[in-house]
């Protein structure tokens, strides 16, 4: 039981009167890709934010890599110590920094030595196939390129856990298929434990080992996928 990489135990989250997460428990093994699938407002994004430490759970515990990072309404470890990579729904690329600058901020914040940063940035950009845009600003990129840049930023610090919040919600179908295989390839290459939020069943099936279906703040069912 306890060798799962990520563990949520009876997590409850309320916004004011409303209970967004109701007694949610979840386990994800190391290297696994789990898709969270569900209608809007079912608590997918909130779950992801609790895992990252952007929200604290009102009840329950969160364990990452054997560490209890949050319990009973308190974040024991702030986000920056949790070794997660997060791709936001809005991508949230910093508009005043270049693509390389975006990645550099991540590494510098985590005190990676200056000499090492450049190589790591190049590597991440290459893996996300966005290296030719290193010195472009985010608003000079197309939607798909921005997506890749955000992905590169999320993996540059070699996180233990990759959290993707509907990263494709705004792309057209063709680009989507491309990026799904891209993400799948990246994930296999890195072997990083990944949680992927979507409301698109096909997307979930294409990517995940398991799909958890969320409804009204709790896990309704978990389906094993044939190898993705």
């Amino acid at each position, binding site marked *: 039981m306890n060798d799962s990489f990520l563990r949520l135990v009876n997590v409850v989250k309320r916004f004011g009167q409303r209970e967004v997460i109701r007694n949610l428990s979840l386990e994800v093994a190391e290297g696994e890709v789990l898709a969270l699938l569900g209608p*809007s407002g079912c608590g997918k*994004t909130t779950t992801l934010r609790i895992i990252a430490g*952007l929200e604290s759970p009102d009840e329950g515990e969160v364990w990452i890599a054997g560490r209890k990072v949050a319990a009973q309404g308190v974040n024991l470890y702030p*986000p*920056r110590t949790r070794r997660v990579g997060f791709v936001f*729904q809005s991508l949230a690329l910093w*508009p005043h920094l270049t693509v390389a600058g975006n990645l550099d*901020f*991540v590494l510098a914040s985590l005190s990676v030595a200056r000499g090492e940063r450049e190589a790591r940035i190049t590597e991440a950009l290459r893996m996300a196939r966005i290296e030719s845009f290193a010195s472009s600003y985010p608003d000079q990129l197309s939607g798909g390129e921005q997506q890749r840049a955000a992905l590169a930023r999320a993996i540059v610090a070699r996180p233990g856990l990759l959290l993707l919040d509907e990263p494709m919600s*705004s792309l057209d179908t063709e680009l989507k298929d491309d990026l799904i295989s891209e993400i799948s390839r990246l994930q296999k290459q890195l072997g990083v434990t990944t949680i992927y939020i979507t409301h698109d069943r096909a997307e979930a099936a294409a990517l995940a080992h398991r799909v958890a279906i969320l409804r009204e703040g709790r896990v309704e069912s978990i389906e094993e996928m044939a190898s993705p």
Partner: protein
Amino acid sequence: MVLSIAALLLIALCALPVIYMIGVSLTGADGALNLDNYSRLFSEVRQRGLFLNSLLLAASASLLATAIGAPLGLLLARADLPAKRWLRILLVIPLIIPPYVMGLAWIYMGGSSGIIARVMGRDFLSPLTYSLTGAVIVLAVCFYPLSMLATEAAARRVDASLEESALIVAAPHRVLRRITLPLIAPSVATAALIIFVLAVSEFGAPGLLRVPVFTTEVFTAFSALYDFGAATALAVPLLALALMAGITARLIAGERSLAGRGARNRGARNRGARNRGARNRGARNRSPLSFRRQHAAVAAAIALGAFVILPLAALALEVGRAERALSALQSSIEAITNSLLLASAGATLSVVAGLLLGYGRARMRRRASWMVDLSLIVAFAVPSTVIGVGLIGLWNRPGLIGEIYGSRLIIVIAYLARLIPVSALILAASARQVPAALEEAAEVAGAKWMSVFARIVIPQMRAGIVAAWVVSFILAFGELGATVLVAPPGQATLPVHIYTLIANAPSGEVAALALMQSTVVITLLALFAIFVRREKRFRS
């Protein structure tokens, strides 16, 4: 048609006095074209000192105002403060109180019986009272709310996810320094420039604190020495400063703001996603970078005490007994009613002209609009004493024009010269919010332009119109630099009345009038706040 009349009005009222002054500055006593006025200007050491003083005063005031205002703006945007709406309004009060009233409060604070001596047990302020430092402090207190409001607005525009994505890897203070601050920097810089321009143009406070700068020198050259040529030549460096700052401000503001850029990207791309998440929005749009509640509350309380309560208390203390205040008010009732009447007339007319100009500006092609914005900003930056002298030169002549010059109308004209650019800028912003499709729909339905404007556009711009009127009234009600020059004998407005009383009446009486002046504008601000609140409820 209507638009061109409004544009002509702007040119006649705002531009002509300035053009006229530049013309006069270039002619000698014999009427021939020469540069005598300028050679005098540049040869005198005193002028260089003036230039330095003006620059130093405006730059320091702008820096200090930003140092106070930007952190307060961040607090308002990010901290979880009690009664934030009212706190914001209270912190704006120094902006609506005319600088010379703030200057009076500053003067009364010092001295052995001043409020500082009473509270601290020692009089620290007196050596500073009449000094450049004093003027810098007074103007910084008057103008910090501009920086505060601009910073708050910019910080609110920063998408929360931009800060959150940084918090995933960085500590909050680092996120604030490296992500939030760079994103709001253009707005903060623009506000600082506008404050610089306002400080360069300010006449009342440096005049009162006896700091010789260009604006006061224009006034002295004209009213004490009757040297029209010198007064006009003095105005030109001021205009140049205003023009430069105006262009720079327009450039910074024109550069699409970074904070907006991020949000715009996202808005376009993720509108669907946003709507889906609408139910969670309240929770999610809250920025992750909030200050400790107690720290924020203490900082806000200190600001409120130092910049709002202390000056008003200093004025009230100087008034002393209530009877004195009453008698002061009674003997000045004429100036008070005069001011109320003229400021209302000025504000109303400036809103009418500003409405047409602003609407025209909002519906303009991009390239021409740049010029209009710039000329409005520059027109607003023209120092009041320069407008005053220009108006005298233009209107002080025999015949009908002289009749107008000799009546209260000239005061309204001076107000309009100062106010129309402000109204037009506010109302252009407001008109831009009205979707052109609404008008097109009405036009397709067969409505005439006038009726579309009156029945579709104006109702949509209601909030902007009220805002422009309030701002115009407040500026007119405190206008000193131009009015003091053009006001006909016996027609003094309240600021002019106070300004002349300062030298020859007991300070208690002056303080009572200054307090009265402040009460009027603060009441108006409170009413406006209530209106805004109602308007918001009405919409939601």
